[in-house]
């Protein structure tokens, strides 16, 4: 299936059809067993490991000519990783691309879930560096697999215990472990724990691809996703003191931007599309430039 005349040597979406079938089989299995890490024969992609080779392969396996693709990196559409992956798919699929969360049918993401609620017609593809939530406590793959199989998850709480013992609170802020559908403990990739509640009962299909580690896992729509915690130290998401400096949004995840070398800083939405939409709707933060324009 080749829709792009100039690139006759490439199959649609770069991977050959057999490879895509192999990945789709892994994805189907992952959807059938929510949270379970399905091994798959990860391919070399024309980008280095750590740049989202797993996510790219998953996207390549599910994308069709009618899809609209959005790629984000830390919530932003305009960072290097997002721009290069978007350009890659434009080149090898010629599908429509967008920065609008609402218009996208497939969103490939690194480190964030969009602020806007996703719908049933959308797929969220995560790039995952280390899929195994137990890895830093138990280095043996044979052992972690056994622990998943036998549902021995006491060790995950040892990590949280250790957090509280050292810091007085659960200091894990990203890759915060979750239990999916009451069975498998899963690493939600390095998204901030702020985004964990969005995974719970999400209408969109969520697919996770780890290229170097050769694992695919999934959360089907309307699946229970619970963040692990202690009774006396319940799960909490990050909160921010001030609203977004550009769009005045509250209750969203903010990035810190250093403004000069004298310690000034501002906090802005990490989801650039969300921020732009709000500004277009007329919301303005204290650094959005309105005051400057009024002066001129």
């Amino acid at each position: 299936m080749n829709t792009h005349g100039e690139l006759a040597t490439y199959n649609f979406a770069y991977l050959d059809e057999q490879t895509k079938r192999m990945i789709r089989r892994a994805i189907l299995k992952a959807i059938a067993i929510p949270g379970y890490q399905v091994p798959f024969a990860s391919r070399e992609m024309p980008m280095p490991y750590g740049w989202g080779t797993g996510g790219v392969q998953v996207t390549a396996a599910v994308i069709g000519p009618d899809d609209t693709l959005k790629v984000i990196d830390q919530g932003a559409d305009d960072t290097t990783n997002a721009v290069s992956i978007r350009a890659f798919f434009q080149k090898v699929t010629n599908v429509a691309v967008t920065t609008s969360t609402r218009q996208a049918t497939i969103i490939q993401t690194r480190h964030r879930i969009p602020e806007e609620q996703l719908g049933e017609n959308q797929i969220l593809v995560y790039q995952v560096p280390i899929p195994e939530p137990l890895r830093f406590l138990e280095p043996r793959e044979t052992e972690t697999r056994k622990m998943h199989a036998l549902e021995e998850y006491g060790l995950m709480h040892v990590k949280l215990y250790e957090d509280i013992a050292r810091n007085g609170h659960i200091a894990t802020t990203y890759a915060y472990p979750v239990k999916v559908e009451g069975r498998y403990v899963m690493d939600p990739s390095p998204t901030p724990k702020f985004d964990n509640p969005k995974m719970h009962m999400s209408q969109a299909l969520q697919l996770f691809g780890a290229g170097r580690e050769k694992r695919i896992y999934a959360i089907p729509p309307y699946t229970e996703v619970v963040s692990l915690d202690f009774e006396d130290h319940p799960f909490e998401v990050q909160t921010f003191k001030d609203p977004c400096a550009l769009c005045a949004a509250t209750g969203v995840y903010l990035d810190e931007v250093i403004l000069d070398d004298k310690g000034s800083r501002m906090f802005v939405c990490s989801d650039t599309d969300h921020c732009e939409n709000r500004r277009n709707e007329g919301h303005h933060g204290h650094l959005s430039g309105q005051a400057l324009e009024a002066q001129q």
Partner: protein
Amino acid sequence: MNEQPLLRVNSMTKYYGSRIGCRDVSFELWPGEVLAIVGESGSGKTTLLNNISTRLTPTSGTVEYRMRDGQFRDLYRMGEAERRFLMRTDWGFVHQNPADGLRMTVSAGANVGERLMAIGDRHYGDIRNTATRWLGRVEIDADRVDDQPRDFSGGMRQRLQIARNLVTGPRLVFMDEPTGGLDVSVQARLLDLVRSLVNDLGLSAIVVTHDLAVARLLSHRMMVMKDGYVIEQGLTDRVLDDPREPYTQLLVSSILQV
């Protein structure tokens, strides 16, 4: 005392290829009893211990354990999930090298609390209190609860390992050379501690040691192994005071007197 044994081992044999690990070992262990397995290096002590504690699979023979419901179960006919659950709740295993039995990179409190969290405890304060109480029982100061075991001395590590194993109230504890690598005064304190814990908690224990003094202090009964065979067994005092086999006599007579 209970009328049924806790553990029944029937003609257990383990071959490593064509070499003998241990051969045709049968014994029963009763509740509250401490059994010492002694012998020189390579006599099959540790092989026997690992076979009984399901860390190795025997070539032939059975090991039956009386579960808390009073039923005997063959350990090698249990599902793996059930066996592992048994190992981390009703059993303990104290390694010779504490680093094998501890998580060296998490705090002492988390080390003791791990078994509690594994069986579903989800209250941080309670877990920490239990851990602190257990550290006290093994004579580790409460203010060390957040320190990592790699900051502990050898004796403290060994005591921490014991606390970690006893926190779920096991009925049977396996110990592989628990005092190996410790100096004599620390050894003496550890033995004292283990002896009082075993008495207080009514534990059964199987202790592997090459040190006859350890066997004398801790155990009620002992088995002497040589070349994979149990050559003599009986009450500890009887075996040590009146050894019958020539090899046991040699072993007893080679204890250094100071």
